[in-house]
């Protein structure tokens, strides 16, 4: 009777086992990486907006405070989007004919709010309150990225709103002080967030990392 398998079979089977193990490891690694790519997190990807608003121009160029438009950031769970009349405080006087601002003028005429596309979104099973974060000295830029440098707005990089990003600060608040000079200038008038204050928070890590702190 002829042999069922040629001598090379042994090598093929061994190679197949090795390849199987390799593919498995590779699959895990790829899944790990892919989940963190900007394709999934949308970090650094500017999204389509009805008006191409530039934070870079308004904040870095003109020096407008974040709270001029996002009025409720300090006092409410929601930072707030400005009504069209906030835009019109300046734009009724400057760039009144600009094509780029046609949608703003139309909104002011009709009273129909501009339908901004939301950039930073938390799932609805997360209880999040802006005011407590701002009052405990977390800079806007810590979560939203360097918005003052964004010509179009994108999700802050490298903070793509994964739960581990929230936990990074909730576990070690002392590692997220408001120190750099640019931030300090932009955060004038915000509650203090220096190292000592953050270190005081670190004593409450147990409270900060309870499940029900964020999942109520």
């Amino acid at each position, binding site marked *: 009777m002829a042999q069922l398998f040629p001598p090379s079979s042994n090598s093929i089977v061994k190679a197949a086992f090795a390849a199987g193990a390799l593919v498995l490891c590779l699959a*895990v690694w790829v899944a790990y990486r892919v989940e*963190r790519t900007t394709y999934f997190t949308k970090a650094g990807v500017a999204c389509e907006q009805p008006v191409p608003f530039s934070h870079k121009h308004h904040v870095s160029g003109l020096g407008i405070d974040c709270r001029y438009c996002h009025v409720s950031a300090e006092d409410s769970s929601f930072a707030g989007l400005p009504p069209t009349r906030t835009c019109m405080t300046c734009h009724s006087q400057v760039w009144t004919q600009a094509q780029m601002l046609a949608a703003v003028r139309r909104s002011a005429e009709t009273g129909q709010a501009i339908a901004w596309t939301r950039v930073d979104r938390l799932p609805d099973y997360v209880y999040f309150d802006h005011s407590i974060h701002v009052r405990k000295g977390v800079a806007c830029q810590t979560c939203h990225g360097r918005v003052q440098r964004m010509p179009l707005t994108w999700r802050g990089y490298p903070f793509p709103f*994964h739960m581990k990003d929230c*936990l990074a600060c909730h576990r070690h608040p002392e590692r997220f002080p408001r120190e750099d000079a640019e931030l300090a200038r932009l955060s004038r008038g915000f509650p203090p967030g220096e190292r000592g204050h953050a270190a005081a928070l670190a004593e409450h890590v147990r409270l900060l990392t309870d499940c029900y702190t964020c999942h109520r």
Partner: protein
Amino acid sequence: MSEDAKRFLAPGWDFGTVTDKISSIILGPTPLSWFVGFGAAFAALLLFIFAVSATFLRGIGLWGVGIPVAWGFAIVNFVWWIGIGHAGTLISAILLLLHQKWRTSINRFAEAMTLFAVACAGTFPLLHLGRPQFFYWLFPYPDTMGLWPQFRSPLVWDVFAVSTYFTVSLLFWYTGLIPDLATLRDTAKSKLARVVYGVMAFGWRGSARHWRRFETAYLLLAGLATPLVVSVHSVVSFDFSVAILPGWHSPIFPPYFVAGAIYSGFCMVLTLAIPLRSLYGLHDFITDDHLELCAKLMLATGLIVDYGYVMEFFMAYYSGDIYEKFLAYNRAMGPCGWSFWLLFALNMVLLQALWSRRVRRSVPTLFVLSLLLNFAMWIERYVIVVVSLTRDFLPSSWGYYGATRFDWSLLLGSFGLFLTCFFLFVRFLPAISMSEMRGLIDERQEAGK
């Protein structure tokens, strides 16, 4: 030893005829009854697939669970199926280490039974998660949540216990199969069968070196599997005993669950062995002595379970705790009392029939008993899981549980999954270990000299 060999293998068989007889099940023509059985099992499997898909699409709102009975059929079925698996491991590992020769002809299909039962069991907690597509959150891996699973939770211990159990059982079963796969490779007529069995046999040639390694590996795996017989169902019992609910919070649970698991496992061995041997005429290999020994083990483990029932009532009285006392009262006299009395009638009263040798030697009686006692073990888990939950500390939060048609479909469908796998196993793999049967004959011949 020769005495054993005589009892557990009818006379007149030699190396060749044993091999031919067992391999003919696979290589010979398939009886019509196989197709009938497989068809029925497959229909039930389709029901299972339907119910699982519905659960995936619509969520567990389709089930009867809610508050206060948040653990319903899914957990009952899980505990029941995983318990059934235990006989396989006990037969393969512990009886091997204890040199019990009678395990030889029943170990293979009991191990297969274990695997399929664990597969059935595993689906239920996953579906019970509510979002089964995220089952992998239970494993510790570097996730984007920055969290590990809660290692203090028995539900996470379950994941490790069950997956370890499945892996070791699979390895043990497959290792034992290797010499038989080589036999099939060498006896099969069709080229395809020879190649498939050949690949699965990993190049087994039956040389002395192969056998020495095989025996070592088999013994090592038996050693690994032995603690699992005790550990897996202990961990399953922790799901309950770690909670504070009366009826769950009890230190007797681990040994009581393990005994119940082995008990129900041997019920299932009988339920499968009796039709299997008459379907393929294997009375010479699976003798009445085998069945009697299974029945004796059932009696022994069943009595431990009965002791557990008695102790639960005794502790309710002895503790003086009003909640424990009420639980005992509610079990027997509450709105779900029927389930307790059914359990009592089967597991405590009917079980005593096995004291009689006449009952143990009567095959039809054993078959009916095995079905009834399997059912009783399912009811036992229903009493523990569901009835305890319906009435806890606060009368204002009492409730009732009613299974929906999806609960029933999943239960019936899981039989489809189990039996479909089992029918395929019997058709394509040797249900009795040929190599070990030859070993038994060898021993008999040695003794005869």
